């Protein structure tokens, strides 16, 4: 077993375990912290796939900006395990879990039968995901969507301000 295989299994177990804890933990703050751990594990997978640009962007944007925003909102509302709305309908709890597990089972079974998934991914090589290549591509071929995304951010900012300013 090589080092990359050990790292792959370690990061997969970390991502899946903390993703389960996001759903299972009572306190919203613990959920957010486990979600940050999941994002770090996914960033580790990006590094194994040699997509360094996306790994860094994932850490900065997701684990850095978005999750701090979530944490800020949860602490603003002073939510904890006591104020958590309980799931009173037990059938919904079991039904939702069984439905999600069945979805996983069906998708895995379908992919096991398909002939597409025979490729091997060589980790730790290739230069596609480096900042040099992606930056060049982003400012030549994809410069128009890049500029449009700034308009999207502006409208999202104005929308968030308008929604939270409105007096009920």
């Amino acid at each position, binding site marked *: 077993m090589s080092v990359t*295989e050990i790292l*792959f299994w370690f990061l*997969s177990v970390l*991502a*899946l375990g903390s993703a389960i804890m*996001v*759903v299972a933990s009572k306190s*919203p703050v613990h*959920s957010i912290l486990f*979600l940050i751990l*999941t994002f770090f594990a*996914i960033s580790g*997978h*990006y590094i194994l*796939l040699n*997509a360094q*640009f*996306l790994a860094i962007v994932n850490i900065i*944007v*997701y684990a850095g*900006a*978005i999750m701090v*925003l*979530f944490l800020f*909102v949860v602490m603003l*509302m002073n939510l904890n395990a006591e104020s*958590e*709305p*309980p*799931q009173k309908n037990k059938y*919904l*709890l079991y039904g*939702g*879990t069984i*439905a999600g*597990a069945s979805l*996983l089972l069906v*998708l*895995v079974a379908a992919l096991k039968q398909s002939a597409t998934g*025979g*490729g*091997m*991914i*060589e*980790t730790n090589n*290739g230069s*596609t*995901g480096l900042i040099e*290549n*992606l930056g060049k591509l982003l400012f030549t071929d*994809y410069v128009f*969507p890049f500029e449009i*995304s700034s308009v999207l951010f502006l409208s*999202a900012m104005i*929308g*968030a*301000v308008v*929604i*939270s300013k409105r007096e*009920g």
Partner: protein
Amino acid sequence: MPVNYYIFLALALFCIGVIGVLTRRNAIIIFMCIELMLNAANLLLVAFSKLQTQTSNLATAGSDAQIFVFFIMVVAAAEVSVGLAIIVMMYRNTHSVDVNFLNRLKN
């Protein structure tokens, strides 16, 4: 690593997100589960981009998928800011983050 492993990992993360959306009642946790599903899709896109880089002999093969993942992250950031503003306003009106309070749209 066979690409199958990455597919199964992304599927498991996605289904955990689905279970969270279906079973939890806290609006913020439902929102976080949606982020988890977006990240599962991103992981799958990066894995397939890597596969395309190896099988194609073009120099820039597979770059498109990584640019696509970058734009998914951009849209997710905008979505989170608006969604959290909506949740904050809902909390101000009902003093709860329980989504079952929103089962009727009037009042």
